[in-house]
């Protein structure tokens, strides 16, 4: 559990003239469940995209499993990704199970076809998110919440060692959201490294090993209770944020909007 799996060193990124990330240093250990929180425009999604190699930082280095992302080759397929605003064409003629199968394309290899064992993994992933009955439906027939679930299933289908999630419970109803975090906990027990971006500080604080507070700079990376005790949240979200308590951990409501949409 002590071995670093993601190392972010002195990373700065800007869409000139806008500086999005400034000198960010963050180490994620193998098997860690990390939640990244922070205000909108704080650079959370940008940081995830840098880890994934979708964006190249102007300064600094990122290592995944000890290598630069461009040198990862086959290991890349061990990274599961659930994007926030997926650039997916939902009119595309493809069924739910075929869509989830695309998560395994990196494992299957160039020019090869899925085998029965691949289809078994797809069904298993669909069961995890309770979408197995929708296997044969076209992806355009799904609701927003269901679309989110098949994105999660796709990331699981790749049998990931690192799971990177960008606001995974957006558009998912409360019940599904809870069972989703239970699912993450189970994966966490299997030593899968989880990096998730979330608005829902109260919820992730119950599940995550550590919380990283990001607002252009990395303000804090520590255990949830430490982050909350030290008043980092007020510093980050400002006075407009309202807190309410649920057990020992305060829920945060940013700009007085409810945490679940």
């Amino acid at each position, binding site marked *: 559990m002590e071995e670093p799996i993601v190392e972010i060193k002195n990373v700065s990124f800007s869409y000139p003239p806008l500086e999005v990330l400034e000198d960010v240093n963050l180490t994620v250990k193998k098997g860690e469940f990390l939640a990244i929180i922070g205000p909108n425009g704080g650079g959370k999604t940008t940081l995830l995209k840098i880890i*994934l*190699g*979708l964006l190249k930082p102007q300064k600094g280095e990122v290592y995944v499993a000890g290598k630069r992302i461009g040198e*990862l*080759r086959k290991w*890349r*397929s061990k*990274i599961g*990704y659930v*994007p926030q605003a*997926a*650039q*997916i*064409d939902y009119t*595309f*003629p*493809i*069924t739910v199970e*075929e*869509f989830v199968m*695309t*998560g395994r*394309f*990196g494992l*299957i290899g*160039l*020019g*090869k*076809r*899925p085998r029965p064992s691949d289809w078994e993994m797809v069904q298993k992933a669909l069961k995890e998110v309770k979408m197995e009955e929708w296997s044969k439906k*076209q992806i*355009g027939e799904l609701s927003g919440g269901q679309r989110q679930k098949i994105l999660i299933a*796709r990331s699981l289908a*790749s049998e990931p060692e690192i799971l990177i999630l960008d606001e995974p419970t957006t558009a998912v109803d409360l019940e599904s959201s809870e069972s989703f975090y239970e699912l993450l906990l189970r994966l966490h027990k299997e030593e899968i490294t989880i990096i998730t971006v979330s608005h829902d500080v109260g919820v992730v604080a119950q599940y995550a090993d550590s919380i990283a507070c990001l607002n252009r700079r990395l303000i804090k990376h520590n255990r949830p209770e430490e982050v909350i005790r030290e008043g980092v949240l007020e510093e980050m979200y400002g006075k407009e944020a309202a807190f309410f308590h649920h057990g020992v951990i305060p829920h945060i409501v940013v700009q007085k909007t409810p945490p679940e949409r």
Partner: protein
Amino acid sequence: MEILQLAFMQRALLIGLIVGALGATLGVFVVLKRLSFMGAGISHAAFGGIALGYFLGWNPILTAVIFCVSVGIGISMLIESNQIKEDTAVGVFFTSTMALGILLIGLKKGYNIDLFGYLFGNILAVSREDLIISLVIGVIITFSLYFFYKELTLSILDPEMARVIGLPLNFLNYLLVSLIALFIVISVRIVGIILVSALLTIPAATALRWSKNLKKVLAISLIDSLGCTAGGLTLSYYLDTASGATIVILTTLVFFVSLLLNIVNRKIQPTA
């Protein structure tokens, strides 16, 4: 049937069916990736390529292959660099390559070129050599689509995910554009430069309204295209009309009738 006993009709039908089948399958990927206009652009560049071949004294078809692939990849690179928008890039290239063609033909005075045949198709001009080139290119296109079926699908469906898992996205884009260029060059004899993008767009557009399963879409597009090519060629023989135009008009008729049926069908069963 008497028309099948004519050697030129046999060749025309054979090359027509090859072209129809390739356009139908490749076209599904083109329409899904919204590259129809790119297809139209590259087809006009084929004119520049053919003229260049004549001007240099090279085989016009092979020169056009190299020229069109270069233009297609050039447009893609320009779009990727975010310097120019896609429609603008295509608009600039297809007019300028055509202008180049006209210029080069003008410079080669006294040379008798079947310009009309290249623009609108001329099945009488289909030679054995054309047939062989078509077969070879047909095999290349079919093999590429089959081999990269899975990768092309993901690169169109979700390019971001394709990049995350490390698919060679640029290569796949250039591959698709190159296949379009190859297809266009071998179709020129049948329907001509002006009409060729119809084969790449219309059967696929028809099929995409009837199924939400990619393999079925490919099958419907294939049947539609083969039927219309064979039907159009036969009609053009009996009606003594231009073969390329007849095929395109027939394909378009099928598209509109199918569209109408599709709309009526959806009104009856709104959830289907």
